């Protein structure tokens, strides 16, 4: 069984400030790691994912996340946020045991960027 913990339910931050959204996971097997974002009144969409290889993965809009196996973490960071980054962010894990790629999600972190 897997679980995902997002300790921060809400993160307020001023525009152009850096931000880190924390994600820790628990699993007895190797996992794939994902960050999904849900903008207001929109559906979930993939932000970035880690499958293998380099532990640092980046999105096209400036977010990055680093897989840390020893810490079982996959924290999401952005050095300078924009008002348009206001959204809810979900960390998720899956494993591939032949049964598909079903995702186990964290409870989400609401990022609110203020002027």
């Amino acid at each position, binding site marked *: 069984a897997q679980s995902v913990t997002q300790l921060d339910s809400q993160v307020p931050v001023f525009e152009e400030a850096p931000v880190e959204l924390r994600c820790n996971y628990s699993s007895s097997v190797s996992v*794939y790691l994902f960050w999904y974002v849900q903008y207001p009144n*929109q559906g979930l*969409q993939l932000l970035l*994912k880690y499958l293998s290889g380099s532990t640092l993965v980046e999105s096209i809009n400036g977010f990055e996340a680093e897989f840390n196996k020893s810490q079982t973490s996959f924290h999401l960071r952005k050095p300078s946020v924009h008002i348009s980054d206001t959204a809810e962010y979900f960390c998720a894990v*899956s494993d591939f045991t032949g049964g598909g790629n*079903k995702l186990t*999600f964290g409870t989400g972190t609401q990022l609110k960027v203020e002027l």
Partner: protein
Amino acid sequence: GAGVSQSPSNKVTEKGKDVELRCDPISGHTALYWYRQSLGQGLEFLIYFQGNSAPDKSGLPSDRFSAERTGGSVSTLTIQRTQQEDSAVYLCASSPSRVGGGETQYFGPGTRLLVL
């Protein structure tokens, strides 16, 4: 191209009634997933279809919930004898197959179900 579509977008029903929720996945995607997003439980996996294989029903919360996928494409999630705790947003996602897993799931806009 077209994304995942779901219908209806909103559904209000009375306790005890049956409801059907529909999902049209992205053309060519062999995998289809149903999730539920509720205030109390967050995002939960419900059921997974892959091609012609038997579905993974391990996330269905009770035997009132069932789903089918016809012709490897459209899927219907049925909730019988709805209860107030079934109120949630039901999300459908599809993905292409990828050797080794880890494929991106593409989510639909969801169906918001309210049971009175």
